[in-house]
């Protein structure tokens, strides 16, 4: 290493120093500490007690609430991410036209996604889902003529409560839409022209040009949105007063971790839950990477 190179490396590490401190003290260290804690019993006040695999054993074999929370989280993830994906691609394609005033549409669709994860909007949706006087049931009965009393009870109903959360999350499709829109604009128009000359109709063009061209963006979005929906918390906490009701039907993993750690002070058990959540997210991402042959990278052809 020449002295100029050494100098550059030293200044690089100076630039990086905030990140390195964070990496050690607020990321790497805590991950390991949480791993260690997950084999302990600890309520903060009394000394830590090493219990081996007991937390994991209890979680897997004696704790129905863990399974419920896992089920609810996976249910929410599957049924919010996939429809959200389809919907945001559809909106992006509709939006990708030369129409006057399209930027107003873009803003209208995008804005809710900026607000969607906040407490204020969760309160708004709690009111929209109100079974007797909420906007949603009024709209349903207005359109279908079903009396309001026969409409779903949404947040008060064990089956509908999770679906209410999903509807709420679909209000935020604009976030994905913006990214797909950028992706669509990156697909060269020459590809469509070539496809048209080859006699491909719109539908065939969609599957042979649009989807492959968009696939790296879809892949990125899929991974990120699965990671974030595994972490749903604020909306559930606000809507259910931190309980995850009715009858644990909206108890999601992060809410359960929060309850165990900061309501019951079972820090060890909560750490074990957090680690299982971590592993579940890693597993989901790994599966996606493993089956990512469908993702088409334009650059690969140029090798």
């Amino acid at each position: 290493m020449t002295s100029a190179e050494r100098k550059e490396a030293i200044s690089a590490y100076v630039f990086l120093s905030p990140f390195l401190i964070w990496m050690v003290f607020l990321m790497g260290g805590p991950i390991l500490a949480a791993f260690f804690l997950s084999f302990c019993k600890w309520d903060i006040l009394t000394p830590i007690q090493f219990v081996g695999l007991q937390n994991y054993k209890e979680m897997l074999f004696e704790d129905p609430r863990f399974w419920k929370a896992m089920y609810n989280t996976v249910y929410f993830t599957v049924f919010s991410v996939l429809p959200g994906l389809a919907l945001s691609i559809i909106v992006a394609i509709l939006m990708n036209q030369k129409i006057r005033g399209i930027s107003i549409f873009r803003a209208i669709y995008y804005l809710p996604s900026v607000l969607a994860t906040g407490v204020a909007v969760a309160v708004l949706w709690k009111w929209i889902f109100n079974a007797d006087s909420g906007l949603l049931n009024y709209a349903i009965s207005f359109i279908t003529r079903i009396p309001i009393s026969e409409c779903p009870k949404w947040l008060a109903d064990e089956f509908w409560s999770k679906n209410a959360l999903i509807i709420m999350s679909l209000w935020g499709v604009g976030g994905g839409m913006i990214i797909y829109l950028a992706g669509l604009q990156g697909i060269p128009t020459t590809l469509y022209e070539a496809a048209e000359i080859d006699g491909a109709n719109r539908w065939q063009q969609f599957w042979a040009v649009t989807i492959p061209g968009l696939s790296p963006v879809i892949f990125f979005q899929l991974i990120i949105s699965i990671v974030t929906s595994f972490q749903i918390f604020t909306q559930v906490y606000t809507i259910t007063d931190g309980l995850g009701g009715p009858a644990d039907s909206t108890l999601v993993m992060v809410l359960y971790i929060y309850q165990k750690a900061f309501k019951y002070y079972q820090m060890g058990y909560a750490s074990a839950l957090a680690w299982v959540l971590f592993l579940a997210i890693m597993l989901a991402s790994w599966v996606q990477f493993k089956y990512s042959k469908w993702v088409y990278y334009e650059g690969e052809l140029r090798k």
Partner: protein
Amino acid sequence: MSDMTATALPDGGFWASKRRTEKYTKIIVVILLSLGAITMVFPVIWMLSTSLKEPTQVFAIPPVWIPSPPHFENYSKAWTISGMYASEGITFTNYTINTMIIALSNCIGVTLSASLVAFAFARLRFPGRGPLFVLCLGTMMVPPQVTMIPTFILFKTFRMYDTFYPLIVPAFLGGGAYNIFLMRQFFMSIPYEMDEAAKIDGCTNFGVFWRILLPLCKPALTTVAVFSFVYNWNDFLNPLIYLDSNSKKTLALGLTNFVSLYGQDYHLLMAAALIIVIPIILMFLAGQRYFIQGIATTGLK
């Protein structure tokens, strides 16, 4: 493109009909988008309308869309009661100030430190750059709940529980993988000749960063700043864990307390919720042009 082909093949009835179908497609697209836009906007109109009602109108079916007279006093009422410890002299004013302090400090911390770190990743050569960057991206997969408990204990040991420090300090330490990534992508889109020219003129690395590249990064910096502001304005879990005394709570915490106390007074709840949402909407409208572009740069890579 369709115009060109149409003029190139003037006599084809096929092209004329193709142009007509394109016009119909556009009309259908506008209709579909409008229907969607109505669905997007209705909840907000509903929120606004409810916030101006008197209590007896709130539950009326069919709903009263335009309350007359509008009850603007719901807002002042919400503002004072929602600080549910109004008896202790705590109102929404306190919550707003607290939230502002936290969100603005985060804005400053995140933009500064994320761009510093991103500059090193984008422009400087040093051993371990590749693996470190992969590690950095990898942290995006780590759910914050894994680090939450040990971090909480760390801050508690340093006697920072019930202060703003745990909510502000991390922002100054790198600003998070996503922001680092976004800034790095942006730096990489700026030609390296800029740096070289500045270095020949005697600029240090920091000089290149501060005087040459940062001023060119305004769209990316705006994106990062707006996102971190909105994130912290809305953040709930961290303040919930770290803040205890009522005088230190944020708007998000204040609103949830308000909900658990006045859960059925939807006219007041909606007024309070709107008060919280309005700054974000304004911020969005102000920075929209910049950050829609900014997100586009990350989404693609």
